[in-house]
């Protein structure tokens, strides 16, 4: 018979009070675990989305806006790059002061933003977008892992490839035709013009990136769609420059010269067309890190502090529960002492009781939070493209175990000390 069993029997003896105390701890820990899991998923999802490219080149403006719009399809585009500027950029060889000349970009994929279908962002791009890996070693799959169909073809300008989350939510299947709207956020009934429909030729396997909830169309078709007259863009004001534009260029650099690559963003920003600096080049992972460690990190920290405070309050609940029971348990403690238990032994039993309540409540809390994440996972995936499941445990959750043991030891100390000080003869003399 271990001291753990003795502690457990004591908990069982006060089952209702113990259950309520454990429940309050479970709710607190569930909150902490949920914050950790959600933050972990957001963090991984953002970093995952930022890993596909070395640079995002766009028009001058906010670097964060450029990355959020280009990589995560959030907010409005930072501006437009005329197509001829794009052509000039990708054909240019940048030169360092030491005379070295940069090799051609390994890839420079144009993307055009502006338009949506049933709320899912429309992205004009080239088939090359899907030929590159979206993360190191991970490629878009059309034939396995749930992927269907094929990549779009350059010559078929009305073809579209749909992200799996978007396809499911918008009920788009292979062969379906759909008519996107010019600009995002415009209600369907407000856009009376009939556009040439795009045909879905591929739905790629889930990538766990924001691309899962986007709709990709041939860039030429995208441009022609925007040629269509509308109230937003009167045809008489259209120029060739405004018709053929790109919102950004996703660049993958040649990895042969890291020092040269480090200098390229600056060289791109300094590059002038017609005497004007027109580009900005940003590392998406750097911008994402700034975002995560800045705004999101602080929000998470505040949430985490609040959640930890809830756990501490639950810990105080354990203290109150055990301490209040000490008067009625003095007699039992005295009996244990009379049977030969030392002061330290009865103290340990009370501490273990506190630890069992904390860890038990904590375990229920972790299961509760992951159960909720599992239940809400499909909805979150559908709305955000973020893959989330009940089994996504965060390493940081391991901190809960020593954290709860320390908390339990602290809050259990007071009642344990009361048990330690019990006057055996006096307590035995008192009626049980």
């Amino acid at each position, binding site marked *: *018979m271990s001291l753990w069993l003795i502690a457990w029997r004591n908990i069982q003896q006060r089952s209702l009070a113990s259950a309520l105390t454990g429940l309050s701890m479970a709710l607190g820990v569930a909150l902490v675990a949920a914050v950790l899991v959600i933050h972990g998923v957001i963090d991984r999802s953002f970093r995952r989305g930022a890993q596909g490219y070395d640079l995002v080149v766009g028009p001058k403006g906010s670097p964060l806006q450029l990355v959020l719009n280009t990589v995560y399809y959030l907010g409005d585009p930072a501006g437009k790059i005329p197509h001829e500027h794009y052509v000039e950029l990708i054909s240019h060889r940048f030169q360092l002061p030491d005379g070295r000349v940069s090799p051609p970009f390994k890839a420079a994929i144009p993307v055009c933003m502006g338009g949506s279908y049933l709320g899912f962002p429309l992205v004009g791009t080239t088939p090359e977008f899907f030929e590159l890996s979206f993360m190191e070693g991970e490629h878009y799959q059309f034939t396995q892992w749930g992927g269907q169909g094929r990549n779009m073809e350059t010559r078929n300008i009305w073809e579209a490839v749909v992200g799996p989350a978007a396809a499911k939510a918008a009920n788009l299947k292979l062969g379906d035709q759909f008519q996107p709207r010019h600009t995002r956020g415009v209600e369907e009934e407000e856009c009376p013009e009939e556009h040439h429909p795009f045909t879905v030729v591929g739905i790629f396997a889930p990538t766990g990136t924001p691309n899962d909830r986007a709709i990709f169309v041939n860039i030429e078709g995208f441009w022609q769609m925007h040629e269509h007259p509308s109230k937003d863009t009167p045809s008489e004001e259209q120029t060739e420059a405004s018709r053929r534009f790109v919102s950004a260029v996703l660049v993958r650099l040649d990895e042969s010269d890291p020092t040269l690559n480090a200098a390229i963003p600056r060289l791109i920003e300094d590059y002038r067309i017609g005497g004007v600096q027109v580009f900005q080049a940003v590392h998406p992972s750097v911008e994402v890190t700034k975002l995560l460690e800045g705004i999101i990190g602080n929000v998470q920290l505040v949430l985490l502090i609040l959640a930890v405070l809830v756990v501490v309050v639950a810990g105080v609940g354990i203290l109150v529960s055990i301490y209040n029971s000490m008067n009625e348990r003095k007699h039992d403690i005295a009996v244990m002492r009379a049977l*030969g238990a*030392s002061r330290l032994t009865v103290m340990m039993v009370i501490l273990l009781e506190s630890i069992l309540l904390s860890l038990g409540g904590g375990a229920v809390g972790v299961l509760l939070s992951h159960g909720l994440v599992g239940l809400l996972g499909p909805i979150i995936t559908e709305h955000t493209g973020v893959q989330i499941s009940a089994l996504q445990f965060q390493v940081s959750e391991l901190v809960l175990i020593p954290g709860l043991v320390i908390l339990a030891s602290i809050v259990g100390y007071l009642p344990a000390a009361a048990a330690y000080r019990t006057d*055996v003869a006096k307590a*035995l003399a008192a009626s049980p």
Partner: protein
Amino acid sequence: MVLQLKEVKKSFLEPDGSPLPILDIPWFELGPGEQMVLVGPSGCGKTTLLHVIAGISRPDSGHVKVNGWDITLMSEAESDRFRAETIGYVFQTFNLLPGFTALENVMLGMRFARGRVDRARAKQLLERVGLGHRLHHKPTALSVGEQQRVSVARALANRPSLILADEPTANVDAGHQQQIVDLLRQTCQEEKVALLLVTHNMDVARQFPRVDRLEDFNLVLKKPTKPNGAAAEA
């Protein structure tokens, strides 16, 4: 001797700070396997004496030796351990822990003695006191007589040299009193354990070969008396 008391004195403090003598025992002995009763009116210090012998309370002066070991010289932790291994205690109110089954209550004492629990012996003891079919019942599911039998089994669990029984029949109805006395005497005899039972019940005392008295509230232990309760009748 299993038990030797020499010049044991103990007093409590009155509210005004003056000492109230409770025990004054010049000499007392109990041999191995011996069974005796200590009688005296309620409040005469019988329980305090048992606490002093068990090391639960410390005497103000004097020596208490059990199996030759002077527990007044031991540290508290040592005397706790010594008590668990050497002395069995049967309480007036049984004092079974309510959250534990009958079997667990018996094993509890083993846990505090050597850390190792002999489950088979605990079961055997409960079977011997007629509770083989009630092993997994909690105290609230046992009758008063059954609870006291569990407490007897618990006292014997660590093969002690001495059993201290504090008014073990006081809370038991008349029908069960004799059963408890018979059980204590018989099991102590079988286990070759010395038994010191305190009671104010003369019917119980008369059954023992040796009876001593604590009397007059000045709490002086009389010299050993004749067997078969002759002194108790005085």
